[in-house]
């Protein structure tokens, strides 16, 4: 029985998923052992609610929307992997924590050099801004795969260990989160 894998991204740059694609020809070997059910970079999506063995989350939790995505992934997967520096530590997104949320919004929507008559969007359907924080601050994380982005070798190692039913441990050059 093939294992199933789903991934999603929160407040990130998609770089971790690009690094996943950097597995190149090793992707072919990967899909022999695991079914990709739903990811932001594949067209074919099976609803994650069906449940998967491995869930990857890229990016930090920074508003009510990303928090919902993180909680949904946690519910759906057996093993949750915090994928990349933003998911593991909070990453570059946490730079925003250094200023109050109102200042950050004003800078982004009103004071931007190219903005004329800007206004801060307000709508009840819009996500509510929160301090940026790692996935582990919101839901329980089983495996940490740090790196900005994680090297494809590190991704391959973690996925291979999980597919084989072992707990991955990053050592040597595979552990690199600068």
């Amino acid at each position, binding site marked *: 029985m093939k294992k199933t894998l789903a991934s999603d991204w929160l407040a990130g740059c998609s770089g971790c998923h690009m690094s996943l694609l950097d597995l190149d020809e090793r992707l072919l070997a990967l899909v022999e052992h695991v079914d990709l059910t739903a990811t932001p970079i594949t067209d074919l999506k099976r609803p994650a609610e069906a449940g998967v063995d491995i869930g990857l989350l890229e990016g930090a939790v920074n508003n009510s929307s990303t928090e919902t995505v993180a909680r949904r992934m946690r519910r759906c997967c057996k093993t949750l992997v915090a994928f990349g520096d933003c998911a593991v*530590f*909070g990453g570059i997104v946490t730079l925003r924590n250094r200023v109050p949320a109102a200042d950050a919004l004003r800078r982004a929507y009103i004071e931007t050099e190219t903005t004329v008559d800007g206004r801060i969007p307000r709508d009840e359907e819009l996500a509510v801004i929160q301090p940026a924080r*790692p996935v582990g601050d919101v839901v329980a994380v089983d495996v940490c795969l740090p790196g900005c982005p994680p090297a494809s070798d590190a991704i391959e190692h973690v996925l291979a260990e999980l597919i084989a039913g072992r707990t991955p*441990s990053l050592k040597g050059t595979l552990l690199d989160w600068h």
Partner: protein
Amino acid sequence: MTTNQEIVSTAPPVNLTINGQPVQGRPGQTVLEAAAAAGIHIPTLCHHPALPPEGSCRVCLIEIERQRGLQPACAFPVAQGMNVRSDTEKVIAARRFALQMIFSERPHYCMFCQVSGGPAETDCELQRLAYEHGIDCWDYPPDAAKPWPVDASRRYFVMDHSRCILCRRCVRACAAIAANHTLGVLHRGTRSMICADDDAPLGESSCVSCGTCLQVCPTGALIDRTAAYRGHAVTGRRTRASCLGCAVGCGIEAVTRGNQLLRIDGDWTAPNGGLLCVTGRFEALDSGRHRVTTPMLRRNGALEPVGWDEALTAVAGRLRTAAGVGGLASPRMTTEALVAFTCFFNEVLNSDEVGLLRGEVPPLDLGATATLADVARADCIVIVGGDPLENQKVLGYLAKRALDRGARLVVVSDAATGLDDRAHLRLRLDSVAHAGATPFELLRYSYHLRLDGISQLRSQIQTAARPVVMYGGGLSTAVHAALRALPDKTRFLPLIEGANAAGAARLGLAPRPLRQEVLYVLIGDDLPNGHALPAADFTIAQAAYHTSWTEKADALFPARTWAEKEGSFLNIEGRECTLVPILEPPHHIEPDWVTLTRLAAAMDRPFMLGAISDNADSPLARPKEATRPS
């Protein structure tokens, strides 16, 4: 610590076991030092070999038989029969926990830190340890929303408290190496913060920007504005050379990458022991100066770039017809360049009108010369007519270090000096000027009963074991005579101004007024700092940068900067310091002596540089062997 080791060096060795391996240590050594000497690696973080142990980070914890709990190897002294283990599960778990606790305190977001890097290239000791200990996440994430202050009030480096791990290396460096005591720790426990003075912004504090804290900081908390985000220091090219900022001649380690000078560290192995001043560490890197890249000639009132041949021909022609030519050289010139300059005047122009642009060399024959090490371990320091803290800063810091260890300070000066508030005895120059002077002066001073000063000075020196006298220029012969008459144990250090003024003095070059039709100035990378050149009908300059000096020039040859020069200079101790080229010079910019030999050739009066030195191995003879540019 040094004295401690000297005292016990004859004591029998201490036998102990580390990780089952028999190790021989010396009494007074720490377990860490004994382990390092035996090639056993114990990880450390707050410890730095140049600093007194602190034992604050708990990364070097070890298990010692019959000791309760784990002990820090950096601070625990060796003892006979001690059984130490640094490799047990308990030790490794404790070390990992200590690292996790450090990560829990403040948000160490490596991705936007300038020292962060992969396992092979990181400049961060915390990150390196985390990699070594397989830390792939924070067990206790720090409060992501808590803001941490950034102090950017200093010109050359910034303090970001969010990256500080409170190892106190900066505090210890400021106290034990720079002897400046600016840094301390405010509050206690989790509220602890590194602070300057009584919590002043660093730029408004007593900080002298010597940058020693920057050099020892294990993380990215102290940010070098020049070097940050321009690559890792560990992967840069490191070159040991000498600072040309003043006559102290500190050893430096320059970090370069792609012919860019990124940062300057103090050389731990040099006599300055890693210590530098703001001039040597930061001002030497200050960019924004406008480089002279081609020869230039003044035409219709403006300097215009011309080719080498055209410039050499024009200058040679002007020199041939001149009624009188005077030459002034910067004291930042290497001895080799000064030799060539003197030779050029003596042999090519048949002129003795050569001197220095600035500089000050007091007489060097007052007694035995002190070394920098003598200053740091002196028990009595006398400063006569000079201000090392202003003009030879590292020497001033070394003197303050000696004062911290209990040395007494006598300041003999008519002007205020930077060390006045540390002086145990403050005297005026005329109060020490009588002894050994002319009968007339003796009578005059005796008549005015001015005997108190010299007798107080003598008694201070007599009661000291290692007295050092630092003396400036412009002192009267009567003061010189009084200093010569001090006891034999006294060591003397001249407060020479101008990096190679001593080397120039050896060649007979000193500052002098010149009034000649044509003025030739060897400027190099020297800066006017408000001084004007003497007036002349025609001024020829060899300079690296466009300055107010070169604005006055009628002919301008490009020159190399200190970082591009090869050669030597004499420092205050009379020690020959070597200038090693750190950077490749821009194309077509020759050493100063080459430009002079080319000019002599253009005048059809080539000269031999080797002739003035009778020793073929002497650096003075080196230019002879070098190939001439085509």
